[in-house]
């Protein structure tokens, strides 16, 4: 089952050890360095991840502590505390809330995307490799769900079952799983005609082994690019839900929620809505630029 892994195309290489995966990651990074757009995206994403990890060290104040409300950026309150980005309607420091808000979005967006991928990959492998009834049933179910405009699905489901973390993640899995299934299924239909799949079948490998070890690793290229784009889109979705009042409950800082709460004060205090919008846009931009860079290098070889 050992194949020559130094395949330069980086396509037909079963992952057989962690060390190898690491080597490949280093190589991908070296390739990504050639794409300026991809590097810019990586920079933005890594920046926000670092901010989220080290939030307690960077944030000047407790994100839930109340100071003087409605301070504009750069103003100082009566006790001499400086607020670089001002304070919100109940006197919480904007900068600290933005920094801690990164945690929430960087936990939920990848969690939801990753779970949706698990579901989509399993469905796609079954539909594509098993074929027959599996394919018909799964594809039909997926088509029905995909015929809903996603936002309707979110609003109806979350409106009915309530906005909790689990419900939001479940709604995202339901809405994006079938789309991922379609992509995986298409890739599987292509890969299953290759000779190494026939070889594995002749060896008598189990379906599970073929799907997970032979097919899945070879489908990863397009899936990584798609995952990156989807991560950006899920981030937007989570932001939109919070903006519409269907997000996770306060008081923990949430970028979309901050815009929703401060909307009515935007006329006099635009900083309260502007900064969270800049934060979420820059993170999504990071994901999208990174996806573009990854696609560029995957097309090159």
């Amino acid at each position, binding site marked *: 089952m050992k194949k020559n892994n130094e395949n330069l195309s980086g396509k037909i290489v079963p992952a057989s050890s962690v060390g190898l995966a690491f080597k490949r990651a280093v190589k991908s990074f070296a390739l990504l360095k050639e794409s300026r*757009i991809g590097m810019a995206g990586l920079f933005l994403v890594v920046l926000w991840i670092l901010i989220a990890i080290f939030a307690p060290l960077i944030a000047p104040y407790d994100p839930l502590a109340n100071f003087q409300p409605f301070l504009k950026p750069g103003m100082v309150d009566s006790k001499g505390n400086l607020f670089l980005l001002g304070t919100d309607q109940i006197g919480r420091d904007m900068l600290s809330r933005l920094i801690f808000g990164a945690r929430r979005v960087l936990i939920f967006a990848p969690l939801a995307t990753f779970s949706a991928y698990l579901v989509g990959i399993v469905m796609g492998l079954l539909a594509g490799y098993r074929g027959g009834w599996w394919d018909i049933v799964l594809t039909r179910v997926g*088509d*029905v769900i995909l*015929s*809903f*405009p*996603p*936002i*309707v699905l979110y*609003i*109806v*489901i*979350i*409106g*009915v079952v309530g906005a909790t973390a689990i419900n939001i993640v479940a709604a995202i899995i339901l809405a994006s799983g079938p789309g991922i299934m379609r992509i995986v299924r298409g890739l599987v239909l292509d890969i299953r005609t290759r000779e190494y799949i026939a070889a594995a079948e002749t060896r008598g490998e189990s379906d599970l082994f073929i799907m997970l070890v032979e097919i899945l690793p070879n489908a990863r290229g397009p899936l990584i690019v798609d995952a990156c784009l989807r991560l*950006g889109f899920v981030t*937007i979705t989570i*932001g*939109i839900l919070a*903006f*519409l*009042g*269907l997000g996770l409950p306060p008081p923990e800082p949430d970028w*979309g929620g901050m*815009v929703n709460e401060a*909307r009515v004060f*935007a*006329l006099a205090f*635009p900083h309260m*809505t*502007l900064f969270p*919008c*800049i934060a*979420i*846009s820059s993170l*999504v*931009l990071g*994901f*999208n*630029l990174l996806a*573009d860079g990854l696609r560029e290098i995957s097309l090159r070889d």
Partner: protein
Amino acid sequence: MQIPVLVFVLKRIGYMVFTMVAVSLLVFLLLEVNVEGVAVGVLGPYSTEEQRNLWLEANGYFRPAYVRYFEWVSRFFTGDLGHSVRFNVPVADIMWPRLWNTAILGFWAMAIIIPMSLVLGVLAGMKEGSPQDRAVSLLCILTVSVPEFATATFFSAVFVFGLKWLPGISAMTDGFDWVQLILPVAVLVTYDFGYVARMTRASMAEVMTTAYIRTAFLKGLPYRIVISKHALRNALIAPFTVILLQFNWLLNGVIVVEFAFAYKGFGALLLEASLNEDIYLIEACSMVAVFVAVSTQVLADIGYMYLNPRIRFK
């Protein structure tokens, strides 16, 4: 050639009926099977157990679910969509005017998105890797990265609070007003044109690498003629489908924009229905939204067949 086309169209319509049945079952399961929830939705959270049971009994809610489902579906066909608790009027009275308002919003957004993204996409795809290609691609990535509510916030900050050129609220309380339509449409266009433009670019770039384009160049045809007579026709087939399928994504933006600018449209209605657990209104709105979505999908399929001779003459 006529019979296969007819079969194809009938198949698509059959598929549409199947989808609508499945969707109606889903909506019914989600909202009507739990009768207690319906009673709470109609009578309010402070109603007593007894009142709810009386109401449920009077409205036939204790009959088997399948009987109620068929009755529910047949009521839809007669246009009786139930009564909105939130607005205290029949659902149809509030929903159709709201849908019309959203159609106006969507029409103007599309009227700008389509020419703009086609032109940008063709310009970028004509010469892959050229500076104009890179500029358009970057612009598209930038605009699709900014969520609609952020675009709305930025535009409001500049044009409403900064320059004071435009109103920040589009409620149209004194009748229809063009000026109030500008910001919502601008936000929709900004977010949505990027995707269509990128698809057009990809399609155009692919056509430009084909043999018949090279032949046309080698024949000595002027660049302008090759682009306008040979490349464009085939390059615009794929974007046609993308544009029709754009409905699902446009609705995303429509809800955000209507909420942000207090525009009295369909999206805001669905959101309000959901936040207030106005069950009959949620049902009607989601069924209508899916119906429009599925219709555009079927239209996209049929239109694609007409545009693409390779499928038409098979």
